[in-house]
């Protein structure tokens, strides 16, 4: 299994990819997932995150099979 990571909008462009899959080993929180793809850097305050399509916090737990998404402030409407 794995953790499916997705990026949207400007972050998708900055990352240069829409999504990727990570091995769940050692990834306990959303923050850990971010660090795993950013050489240990902290998740910036201005980014939002979701686990399985519901808003989450950096400290929210993640499990094998989860979909974790990162994106900038929303601007719809």
């Amino acid at each position, binding site marked *: 299994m794995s953790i499916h990571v*997705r990026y*949207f*909008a*400007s972050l*998708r462009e900055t990352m240069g990819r829409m999504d990727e899959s990570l091995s769940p080993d050692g990834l306990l929180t959303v923050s850990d997932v971010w660090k795993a793809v950013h050489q240990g850097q902290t998740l910036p305050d201005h980014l939002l995150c*979701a686990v399985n*399509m*519901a*808003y989450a916090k950096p400290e929210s737990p993640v499990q094998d099979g989860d979909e974790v*998404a990162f*994106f*900038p*402030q*929303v*601007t*719809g*409407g």
Partner: protein
Amino acid sequence: MEIQLFETPYDPYALLRDFEMAPDHPGSHLGAASLFIGTMRDFNEGEAVESLWLEHYPGMTERELQKIAQEVRQTTPFERGLIVHRVGHITPGDTIVLIGTWSCHRAEAITATSKIVEALKHRAPFWKKEQRGEKNHWVERNTPGSVA
């Protein structure tokens, strides 16, 4: 709550008429409808905007809109609700968002629609990218003069 996302232009008034004609719409019991319609403007911050790209998070966007509707309904009950949002490539004059609530009481309909509009702007996963001349850029949250 009915949620509709369209990739192509829609006519908000034709859509509203269809919605009210639907067999499950309790027609004459609902005295009040409060509607909000947001249209793409051709100017932002004094510059001409040629088009807009509206990205969303398929699956989460719909869920979040349902959550917003449910939360608003708990404090401001309404009978029926409709949220419609454009995604993809949008040009000036296109309707971006249509929010409607129907109730027996005018105050509830007005408050519910207003709360849904605010929550949608702040929480629903949509992102706008503006095309101005040769440049395009992602719209920042709370841009002065931001659309609608």
